[in-house]
């Protein structure tokens, strides 16, 4: 099966910032993204868990975006501008995709 190289950007960010991040991704021209729920975690700002929470202040989501390698730098710039002052994590890894025409 024919595959094509792509980049997988995974951004873990506070739930309140989700729409700002995805707006930025769209402006950076990504073809799509997927949002995964996050149950809990730990970092410099302490431990947290979603269990029993009613507000949106203390939760995170993970936004995964697959993109062509040449788009990476502009997407990272835009995403970083949103994440910068916020709790969050941005990782990039290599992957192969099938159906490259979709990206």
């Amino acid at each position: 099966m024919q595959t094509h190289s792509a980049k997988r950007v995974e951004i873990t960010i506070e739930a309140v910032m989700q729409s700002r991040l995805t707006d930025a991704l769209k402006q950076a021209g990504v073809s799509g993204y997927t949002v995964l729920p996050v149950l809990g975690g730990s970092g410099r700002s302490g431990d947290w868990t979603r269990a029993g929470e009613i507000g949106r202040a203390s939760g995170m989501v993970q936004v995964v975006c697959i993109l062509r390698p040449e788009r990476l730098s502009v997407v990272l710039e835009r995403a970083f501008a949103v994440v910068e002052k916020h709790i969050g994590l941005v990782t990039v890894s290599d992957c192969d995709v099938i159906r490259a025409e979709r990206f």
Partner: protein
Amino acid sequence: MTEIFALAGQNLLSPIILSFALGLAAALARSDLSVPEAAAKALSIYLLFAIGFKGGVAVAAHGVDLTLALSLLAGFVLSALLPLVAFGLLRAMTGLSALDAAAIAAHYGSISIVTFVAASSVLDSGGIGYEGYMVAVAAAMEAPAILSALWLISRSGGSDGARRMDRDLWREILLNGSIVLLVGAFAIGWATGEDGLAEISSFIVSPFKGVLCLFLLDMGLVAGRGLRQSAGLLQMRVLAFGILMPLVGCVFGLAAGMLLGLSTGGVALLMVLSASASYIAVPAAMRVALPEANPALSLTLSLGVTFPFNLTLGIPLYVAMARAATGG
């Protein structure tokens, strides 16, 4: 004085408070008891809908008057003013940065709807009447505190508040889910009145207190977890603020309530609103606008210290003060 203790004692033995205590104890003991997030949110949707609806029905029954408008205005002013008081106290009492102090101050200007509900149910049991529109006042007090806090930050330099206040944030604050639901249900209750209530009262009236128990069980779990995780974080002085601020806030509420000429229960509720601190709308807004502020600090203070204080000792105290002041 004896009256306060009697009321406090009776209050402490209600299933509602004991459910909170159970959750708190379970979390502090590190039990794995937990309410699923979706269930907790569903409970809060139920409570907001029921509270708003019943408030609207009360207004439909008793009509609108000038006091309603003035009370809304008073709520708005209190919510905008109290953060300044809280900020001043925090800067004087504690070594917190301006940012952290402003974030906490925003919480204390806003309100806790569950504290409001718990107080209403104490008034109901005690047969003390109150204005039905107090729910609308509660809604009016949700957001102004946020603006005050941002103004404080922009004034105390560091970074400009205007930049932090983009259009999206405005919308998020004003159309925050809990405000929309509370106000929307209020409007529905108002529009449909007693007839509407009759249709759905076996859903929003009869089981209400029981649902509140489960909700407070969850609040206890969340508060206990917060306390456990940020035990090291909270200095004594910050903790003291969590008890002092409601006592200061309630005085503002008392003054406003007397000026407005509210009923005994109305005064008590305005005191409760002034004394309580937000843990839904404000924390989310603060994460967007003041991301550098430590969220654990404000949440633990408002949910882990002030909320239980109000629930157990505060409410009976405020009710007693309101009775003394109004002679009710």
